[in-house]
C-alpha cells in the first residue's frame, strides 16, 4: 500500500465538521417532527376520508415509498427550480426529507391505527369526548407506542438520508466534508472521519430512544 495518510488537515478542521454535524442533526430532527405530524394526517385521511383528498394522500405515500429519496430531493431542487420556485439548500433538504419521512411514517401509522379496536373510540365518545379528543387522548398515544420502534428506525434513516444534501449543495456533515476535502484532496481521510461521526450520531439516537422507551413504557 503506497499511500501516505494525512490526518492533520482533517483534525484541524474537526470543529467545522462537528458544527456541520449539528446541522445534520437539526435538519433530521426537524424533518422527523414535521414528518410525524404530516404522516399522521395522511394516515387518518387514507383511512377515513373519501374523495380527492384521499387520492392525494395515497399518491403522496406511494410516491414517497416507491421512488429513490435522491430523485425526490432533485425534484425539490431542480424540478421546482424549472417552475421558477427557487428554494435554499436547507429548505430543499428539509422538504425532501419531510416528504419521504411522512410517506413512510404514514404507512406505519396506518398499521398502528388499524390495531386500535373501534370499540375504544365508541367508549370514549360515549364518555362525552368529542371525536378529536378521542383521537388525541385515546387513539394516537397508543398508536405512537405501537410504532415507536419503526419510528426510531425512520429517525436513523432520516440522519442517513440527510447525507444526500451533499448533492444539492447543502453544507451539512457530508456537504461540508466534500467542500473541505476538495481543498486538500484528502478525500479518504475526510470521509472516514465523517463516517465515524455519522456512526456516533446514529448510536446516540438509538441509545436515547432506548432510554426514552424505558421511561415511557414502564408499565
Amino acid at each position, binding site marked *: *500500500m*503506497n*499511500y501516505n495518510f494525512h490526518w492533520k488537515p482533517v483534525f484541524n478542521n474537526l470543529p467545522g465538521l462537528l458544527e456541520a454535524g449539528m446541522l445534520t442533526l437539526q435538519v433530521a430532527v426537524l424533518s422527523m417532527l414535521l414528518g410525524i405530524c404530516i404522516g399522521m394526517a395522511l394516515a387518518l385521511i387514507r383511512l377515513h376520508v373519501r374523495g380527492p383528498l384521499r387520492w392525494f394522500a395515497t399518491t403522496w405515500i*406511494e*410516491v414517497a*415509498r*416507491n*421512488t*429513490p*429519496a*435522491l*430523485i*425526490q430531493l*432533485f*425534484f425539490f431542487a*431542480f*424540478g421546482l*427550480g*424549472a*417552475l421558477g420556485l427557487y428554494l435554499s439548500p436547507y429548505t430543499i433538504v428539509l422538504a425532501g426529507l419531510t416528504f419521504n419521512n411522512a410517506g413512510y411514517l404514514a404507512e406505519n401509522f396506518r398499521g398502528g391505527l388499524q390495531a386500535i379496536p373501534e370499540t375504544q373510540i365508541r367508549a370514549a365518545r360515549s364518555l362525552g369526548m368529542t371525536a378529536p379528543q378521542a383521537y388525541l387522548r385515546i387513539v394516537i398515544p397508543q398508536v405512537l407506542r405501537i410504532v415507536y420502534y419503526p419510528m426510531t428506525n425512520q429517525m*436513523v434513516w432520516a440522519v*442517513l*438520508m440527510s*447525507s*444526500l444534501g*451533499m*448533492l444539492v449543495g447543502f453544507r451539512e456533515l*457530508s456537504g461540508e466534508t466534500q467542500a473541505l476535502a476538495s481543498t486538500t484532496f484528502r*478525500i*479518504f481521510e475526510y*470521509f*472516514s472521519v*465523517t*463516517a465515524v461521526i*455519522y*456512526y456516533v450520531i*446514529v*448510536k446516540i439516537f438509538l441509545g436515547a430512544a432506548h432510554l426514552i422507551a424505558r421511561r415511557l413504557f414502564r408499565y
Partner: protein
Amino acid sequence: MNDTLSFFSGFGPRDFLFLGEAALRTLWISVIAISIGTGMGVIFGWLLFEGKLLATLTLGPVLDVFRSVPLLIQLVLFYNFAPMVGLNLAPFGSGVVILAIYTAALVASVARGGFEAVGVPMRRASRSLGMSYWQDLRHVVMPIGMRAVFPAWVGVALGVMKDSALVSVLGYVELLKASQILITRTQQPLLILALAGAFYFALSYPISRYAARLEERWEQ
C-alpha cells in the same frame, strides 16, 4: 438571418431510448448486487444465529457499521480506498461491491429473524426423525424460516434498487445519471425527473404491493 445556434435541444425519441438503456443498467447493477448480497446476508444471518457470542462480538458490529453509515459515504470511501490497495475498479465494480455488502448487512438481520422464527420443538422433531444438522437446515429451517421473512426481504431488495441511484455519484451512467445528463442538455428537469421517477415507481410499486398482499395472506 435570425438563426441562433443553441446548446440546448428538446427532449426527443432518441433520448427516450437513452433513458431506457440507462434503466436497464440500473436493473442490472441492482440484480447483481442484490443476488450477491442476499447470498452473503443469509450466511451472515446463519452465523449470527448459530455462533451466538462469538459472532455477535465480531460480525455483528461490522455489519452494524454498514447499516449506520450513509450509503453515499460508503461509496465515496470505497471508491477512494480501492486504488490505495491496488484495486482498479470501474465505477460499476465499486458500486456492486458496496451495494452488495450493504445488502448483506441488511439481509443478515432479516435472515437471522427467519432462522429464529423456526421453533426449537420442530427442529428437535426433525433431528429425532434421523435428519442430520444440514438436512434439518436445508429441508426444515430454510423453507419455513426464509418464507416467514420473504416480505421483509422484498422490502430490503426494493430499498437497494432505489439506493442504487447513488452509484451515479461515482459516474456510472445508470438511470439517475442519465437523467442528469439529459437535464443538462435539454433544460427540462421536471419532465425528465418525472420520467426517471416513473420508472422506479413502475418497478417498485407492483412488487411492494405483491409482498404486502403475500404478508396479509400469510397472517390469516
